């Protein structure tokens, strides 16, 4: 059964069309990744599904409740961990959790036991009675997640759960999310800028670009859907533009793009194509400092479906 259904969601902020018909569904118990750069529409999608904003058109159901007609039923069924921490910094971790639980209709011994359980689950028992102001970034993030889980929701929304964390904390968070999904039997909708994160956590992903979903499937399927191999070349400063023109002209090279000193392209067979690429570049006096051929990554999938490298889209629509 589907835990989340979005059908043709549209949303406009002034002149910016943030959502231009978003349709997808998430099965019960699944971790689903909405993948896109800033402003592509994944955060707006989450705001609609968590009842923070109403869509201009389209329908959405979360845990079998209509987000527009039965917002309070949706709110009781979901946990929302926003991009920016919503914890009360002047209160203790425990106080934050107790208030959240009360608002969600819990009380008494059940609430106290659940708060203790969650503090244990996310590993902030020692800090429970300290004011959140003194928490580290990772601890605050774990409290955010606990706040979303207090009322035992069936669906959890994680909006960029690891943005702003260092790589070590990010890896720890991935393990955590996986474990929570199992222990709490959650359906998780995850938005992320990090392709690696989606690849690692999500059973299925949808790629969002300009307010619409351009590809959907298991990360493996999406990568397999791209034939051939990706070739990444590192160039000397200032030569990328010319190199891009040369590589684009070569037979068999598709989806060539440049990001700083890195040039990416996709070819049917890396080992066969690389000598040709290198000699074409060196013939024009362009020095290549390194070259690598690999199976297509989600980066390449993204490039393939959006026609753009994975960089920020219009920030205004974020």
């Amino acid at each position, binding site marked *: 059964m589907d835990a989340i259904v979005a059908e043709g969601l549209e949303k406009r902020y002034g002149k910016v069309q943030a959502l231009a018909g978003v349709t997808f569904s998430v099965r019960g118990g699944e971790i689903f990744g909405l993948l896109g750069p800033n402003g592509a529409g994944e955060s707006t999608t989450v705001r609609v599904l968590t009842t*923070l904003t109403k869509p201009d058109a389209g329908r959405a159901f979360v845990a079998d409740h209509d987000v527009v007609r039965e917002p309070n039923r949706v709110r*009781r069924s979901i946990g929302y961990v926003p991009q920016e921490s919503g*914890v009360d910094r*002047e209160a203790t971790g425990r106080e934050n959790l107790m*208030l959240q639980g009360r608002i969600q209709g819990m009380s008494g011994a059940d609430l106290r036991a659940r708060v203790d359980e969650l503090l244990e689950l996310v590993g902030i028992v020692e800090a429970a009675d300290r004011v959140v102001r003194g928490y580290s970034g990772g601890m605050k993030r774990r409290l955010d997640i606990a706040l979303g889980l207090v009322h035992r929701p069936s669906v959890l929304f994680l909006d960029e759960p690891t943005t702003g964390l260092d790589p070590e904390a990010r890896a720890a968070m991935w393990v955590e999310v996986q474990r929570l999904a199992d222990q709490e039997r959650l359906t998780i909708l995850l938005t992320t800028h990090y392709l690696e994160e989606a690849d690692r956590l999500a059973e299925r992903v949808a790629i969002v670009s300009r307010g619409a979903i351009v590809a959907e499937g298991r990360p493996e399927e999406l990568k397999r859907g791209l034939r051939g191999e990706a070739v990444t070349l590192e160039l000397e400063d200032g030569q990328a533009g010319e190199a891009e023109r040369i590589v684009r002209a070569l037979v068999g090279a598709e989806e060539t793009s440049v990001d700083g000193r890195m040039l990416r392209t996709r070819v049917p067979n890396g080992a066969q194509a690389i000598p040709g690429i290198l000699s074409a570049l060196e013939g024009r006096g362009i020095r290549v400092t390194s070259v690598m051929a690999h199976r297509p990554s989600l980066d390449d999938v993204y490039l393939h479906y959006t026609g753009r490298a994975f960089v920020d889209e219009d920030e205004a629509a974020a």
Partner: protein
Amino acid sequence: MRVAAHTWWMVGRQLRNLMRQPIWIALLLIQPMIWLLLYGQLFSRVPTLRGGASTYVEFLLPGIVVMNAFFGGTWAGMAMITDLDRHVVDRFLATPASRLAIVLSQVVRAGVIALTQATVILLVGFALGVHVHGGALGVVVLFAAAFLVAMVFAGISNAIALLVRREATMIAAANFVGLPLMFLSSILITQRVMPHWMQVVSRFNPVNWAVHASRDAVVRGGNWGSVGIHLLLLVGVTLVTASFATWTFRSYQRTL
């Protein structure tokens, strides 16, 4: 009732957080004493200012109670801006939290703080020999006036906070409203010594309604009909400004 329960919990959250700031508590308690002692000394030699009161401090006490309450109210929106900036409001919005309670809690909290300050001022006043001529009822009226006038301005302040959503603009607005309304009231001097046009304008000033009610209760110990009308007017304006704040909250939600 759900709204009442949610408001209560959210007021509790705000007060608990404030109790963690010792300097804030110290200022909260010391500031009204300073007003009372400072102004009490400054104007005590001018007998025309105090109306029919036996001492200027006695005349001044109800005024200072009201002044603290309404100044506190004008600044109440700052806490709303902090909660908006720190995404606490958005977190509540994704839960079944009563929307009304999110706004009301900020308004009621201002009223509760005004009551605390009124208690301190009253105790200091007793120490300075102030006599509340209206007795226990007089004290109740004084507290009611402080509670209501704080909420009147907390409603406006929260509405401004939700419209501008920036601290600097909020501070400018609070100053813009606060000082003129104080001088267009009989907080410091009796109505009769004000210029005529100010007397006329002050009749429409909710701050002055609170001053009239509390001064009748403390200094005269009578005129209860007029006291009742002024308190009822304050209840009415509180409902208006709190509704306005709630309306601006809905306009904030539409920006999400």
